[in-house]
């Protein structure tokens, strides 16, 4: 919006378009621009970067509507990674394992995708590179059984953290969602004394369908946080603002590349600034 320093309709419209372009969605974008319009007088004749800052503040407020739990809670932890196909769950499982390992945790990986071609091999390769144990079974095994084994092994080997990878599944497949709910029940029964969290992995390139994904997944397995992958691309992942607003689910981590180190903790203000651009 160049160097225009006053809030005419055209400036407000291009502000809204900028937010829509970042995948915040029409409703959230309109709401944000309305909140800026109300304060229009404050910015008349001022410089545009102040307006951008103000907008970033308002985006951050929406994100903080979903309070962030600690990235590394104290005590023993089980993390369940869920999400639709191809978003980055397996790679994120490896990155999360590496991240916790760097923080001194003893990590165990569970190869809970027993369905897709070479899913277990993929996780095994990562585990090997990171020198982390992985619990697996033959292809076609019941994923709940793998998870059960992994939790038993985790307890026996004094692991601090068990990270469970699962098969990609579309949220409109009832049978697959039921399978996931069963995996979660196994975790709750078997890891009774452990802290537990379910992270929904979302692809930053995904549009408004991410809201539908978050809604459905949390309905079946109560999602505690989002791991937003592929933020190193050009997509900004603004749909997470709408998700924070509507479902109060916070983003906890960002995937910023394909390597084991490419995982960072979510910083709402920083993210908001990147969205507003």
């Amino acid at each position, binding site marked *: 919006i160049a160097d225009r320093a006053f809030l005419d309709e055209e400036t407000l419209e291009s502000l809204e378009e900028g937010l829509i*372009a970042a*995948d915040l969605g029409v409703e959230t974008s309109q709401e944000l621009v309305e909140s800026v319009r109300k304060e229009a007088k404050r910015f008349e004749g001022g410089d545009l970067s102040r307006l951008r800052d103000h907008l970033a503040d308002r985006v951050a407020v929406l994100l903080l509507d979903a309070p962030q739990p600690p990235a590394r809670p104290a005590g023993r932890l089980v993390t369940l990674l869920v999400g639709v*196909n*191809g978003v*980055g769950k397996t790679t994120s499982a490896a990155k999360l394992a590496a991240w916790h390992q760097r923080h001194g945790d003893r990590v165990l990986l569970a190869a809970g995708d027993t369905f897709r071609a070479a899913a277990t*091999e*993929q996780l095994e390769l*990562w585990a090997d590179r990171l020198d982390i144990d992985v619990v697996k079974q033959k292809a076609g095994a019941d994923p709940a059984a793998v998870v059960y084994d992994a939790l038993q092994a985790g307890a026996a080997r004094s692991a601090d953290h068990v990270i469970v990878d699962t098969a990609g599944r579309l949220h409109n497949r009832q049978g697959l969602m039921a399978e996931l709910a069963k995996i979660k029940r196994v975790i709750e029964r078997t890891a009774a004394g452990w802290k537990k969290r379910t992270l929904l992995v979302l692809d930053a390139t995904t549009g408004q369908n*991410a809201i539908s994904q978050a809604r459905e997944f949390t309905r079946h397995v109560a999602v505690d946080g989002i791991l937003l992958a592929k933020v190193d691309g050009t*997509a900004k992942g603004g749909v997470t603002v709408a998700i924070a607003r509507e479902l109060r689910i916070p983003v906890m981590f960002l995937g910023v590349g394909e390597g084991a180190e490419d995982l960072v903790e979510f910083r709402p203000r920083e993210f908001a600034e990147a969205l507003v651009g």
Partner: protein
Amino acid sequence: GLQDRLQGVFKRLKGEGRVSEEALQAALREIRLALLEADVNFRVVKSFVARVRERSIGSDVLESLTAAQQVVKIVKDELVGILGEPGGDLRLTGHPSVVLLCGLQGSGKTTTAGKLAKKLRESGRQPLLVAADLQRAAAVEQLRQVGAGVGVPVLGPDDGETAVDLATRVSREARERGYDVVVFDTAGRLHIDEALMDEIAVLAKSLDPTEFLFVADAMTGQDAVKSAGAFGKLLPLTGVILTKLDGDSRGGAALSIRSVAEVPIRFVGVGEKPDDLEVFDPERMASRILG
């Protein structure tokens, strides 16, 4: 759906017989909203709505008692017009013909390679799958298993071979061994990764594919114009395959991609199994986008 929303608008604002400029503006806003909610890129929406406006004003549609219905028909026709022809068979000329796949990370290339190979085998061809993703953990193994599942042999890289070396070797070996189609799977890549975009451009030069297909995820949002636009600009694409249409995303990315990549959508992925590939149907896609 959209028709009900437009009925509401026209009922409220139609006045005595003629649809006012105000009603038309309100209707166009509803159309814009519907398309943005469906993830069509906002610039594509802008020019689309402008065209719908032209057509609505230019006709006597707005005077009609069924104005809402007629405007929806204009919108649908315009959508189908942009989405293009129904997909058809793969173009296979060359000995062997090469079908090269490309796309962003996780879009469904490896799975789609298996689907295409199965389709080719069932149509009487001798396909060969080539595992040219040397980057992703267990990518070659994944394609080997996919190939085994559809009864199509898979050629993988030798130790130390680059994707381009492999391409050179494949063209020769495929011919020698009597394969008449080669389906080339490649690593997922970002359109902003210059080195990897160069790599696949070089690969395409060496293989001279008769089909160079961009495999894209149907749930992609506003970014679809950036990625598809870059791939279309930098590479000699011949078509697009849209995957994961068995989900519930509205699929507005189809319109964005078709608008910027300027190549037709040929097939759609509708599941994880080797049979889950359908020929692209623009009418069905238009209805889906409109919700």
